[in-house]
């Protein structure tokens, strides 16, 4: 009897000891989702091209002046604002009507967004039926600026069933002290298999990444290297992939110093790239080779927006501007650089790559879509 009580007590205690801040293993399972209602008619792939979109939805906050990624002061968004933006994001995704959606900065249980599970919300308010999610920031309570509970990360939505979802841990920043790092982000790559899109014995994968934005060390280089390895492994194992995300890197040939346009009122751009916080996220040459960091991806795989003809540098393909970046007192800078990309080891339909800049108010990033053409022309 005493042993039984001990076992019962130990069970309670162990179950009550979820970590305060989740420290993820190098590779782990992602969390799977399904829409509340899955109509058979659109959950079966019927052949033809496959449309893919990537979008950093900035936790459904639109151009909310969040303190963490812009010059804003706000922390906890108003629930009605989040609800309005999330509905508009769902409407936009329905309008784009992709088969596969790669999302970044999706909140599933965060105080800043009213604890709305945005993955489930999007599944229940769009044509998508299946999703997987990998957290990049999961803490019971972040005691800074009133952030509180946080659970945000990458998600992949699909019309077709997903299997073998995998969360691949990206290297942590090395330019932070232990206390800050304990409560900080654990970025990742989310990789999932889509069996119904497999063809000729070749597995089909969707791979989603959100690389570091603010590191001033070589973390970004390591993230892109890890990303390349994940994609390369798929190719080595005779798989096909569509992949993309917010790489927080500018394309080769782009401007690299956005400090003057990104800086907050109290900041000065003084060329102290290493120590001045104004250069975090606004300067793209923190280490040797950073301006060309994406060159190997462009050379190895097929990009949705071509780099060879200079398309990646055109304003119509810019995907980002900080949410509080202003041209003047009343006009937002809608976009001034490209940070979001799509790649495949197959091919995209010629000219199908498109940046949906009309959605600029719904996030500080804009969706990029393209149509993947299966090798046989149809699956």
């Amino acid at each position, binding site marked *: 009897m005493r042993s039984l009580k001990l076992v019962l007590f130990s069970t309670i205690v162990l179950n009550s000891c979820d970590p*305060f801040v989740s420290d993820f293993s190098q590779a782990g399972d992602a969390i799977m989702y399904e829409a509340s209602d899955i109509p058979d008619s659109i959950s079966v792939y019927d052949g033809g091209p496959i449309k893919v979109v990537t979008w950093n939805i900035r936790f459904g906050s639109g151009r909310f002046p969040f303190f963490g990624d812009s010059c804003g002061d706000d*922390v*906890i968004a108003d629930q009605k604002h989040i609800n309005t933006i999330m509905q508009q994001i769902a409407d936009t995704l329905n309008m784009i009507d992709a088969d596969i959606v790669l999302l970044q900065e999706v909140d599933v249980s965060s*105080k800043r967004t*009213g604890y709305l599970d945005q993955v489930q919300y999007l599944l229940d308010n769009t044509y998508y039926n299946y999703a997987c999610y990998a957290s990049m920031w999961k803490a019971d309570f972040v*005691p800074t*600026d009133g952030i509180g509970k946080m659970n945000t990360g990458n998600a992949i939505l699909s019309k077709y069933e997903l299997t073998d979802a995998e969360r691949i841990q990206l290297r942590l920043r090395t330019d932070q002290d232990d206390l800050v790092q304990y409560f900080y982000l654990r970025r990742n790559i989310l990789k999932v298999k889509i069996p119904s899109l497999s063809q000729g014995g070749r597995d089909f994968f969707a791979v989603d990444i959100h690389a570091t934005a603010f590191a001033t060390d070589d973390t970004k280089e390591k993230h892109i290297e890890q990303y390349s390895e994940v994609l390369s492994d798929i190719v080595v194992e005779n798989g096909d992939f569509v992949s993309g995300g917010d790489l927080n890197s500018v394309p080769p040939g782009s401007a690299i110093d956005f400090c003057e346009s990104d800086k907050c009122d109290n900041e000065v751009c003084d060329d102290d790239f290493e120590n001045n916080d104004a250069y975090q996220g606004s300067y793209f040459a923190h280490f040797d080779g950073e301006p060309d960091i994406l060159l190997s991806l462009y050379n190895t795989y097929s990009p949705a927006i071509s780099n060879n003809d200079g398309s990646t540098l055109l304003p119509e393909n810019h995907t980002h501007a900080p949410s509080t970046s202003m041209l003047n007192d009343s006009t937002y800078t809608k976009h001034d650089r490209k940070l979001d990309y799509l790649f495949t080891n197959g091919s995209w339909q010629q000219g199908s790559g498109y940046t949906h800049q009309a959605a600029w108010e719904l996030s500080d990033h804009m969706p990029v879509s393209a149509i993947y053409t299966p090798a046989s022309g149809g699956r």
Partner: protein
Amino acid sequence: MKFIFCILLFSTAKTLFSMNASWNSNSAEIITEKRWEIGLFQPFRYGYSEKTEISAHPLIFFVMPNVSVKKQEKRFRGFNCASKISFRYPTPLLNIISKKGIGGVIDPNLESPPMVSLSYSWIMSKSLNGFDMTIKNGIDFALVLGSLDNRATIDLPLVYHRLALYNNGWGYHNGIDIQKRINKSFSLLVDMDFLILPEIAKMQSDPSFKSLRGLYSLEHKFLLSWEKSKNFRVTTGYKLVRAELPFGEQTRLLPYLPLFESWVPIIELQWAGVKK
């Protein structure tokens, strides 16, 4: 920063304790007239008269004015009875921890208006077969003079249900304590407390969102005390909380050290004396 953490630690820790016996702040027993007791996390208690006890948490008094008065009532069916009225004014504390940077627990854009709470508890204690049992029931009311933003909550076990009272307007609490003296120096305490915020879901500003939760907090503790003398004792143990919070249910063993991701035992020191 350290100051804020000290306040938070204290505010949380004082809810971890609340002990019984002659050091007893939760039983219907009234502290002996002119005797005082204080602990690291326990309130300062003072026997104002034979039938009246006054208590307050002195360390946080200046940022959260608080006072409780416990009064002995007529015995009922073998139970010693007491009533307790508690008053708290948390506004200054909440506005201190509503700040930018590390230590900011509440969104700095959300200012807490003046607000007070009043709690009434009916307490009954009885000795049964060598066990001292206390049952308590009570109701909590909060008055907010202004607009309190529903986002200005601290969504942590133990803390949420005590602060969301100001959002909800009222709450209900009850509990049972059982204490056993092992020998002259050692005693054990096991208790269970239940806090309810009955209409908390109605706080929801946007009905299309997932319903805001936080209905209940079920709190259990186990404490072992060593009484060195009538004037000093040491207590250790744990507190286990199962609570519904705005994001869902959570169970936590406390105290919990986040950086070490580990539970650590409660350590409480208490001192007592008699005013001449």
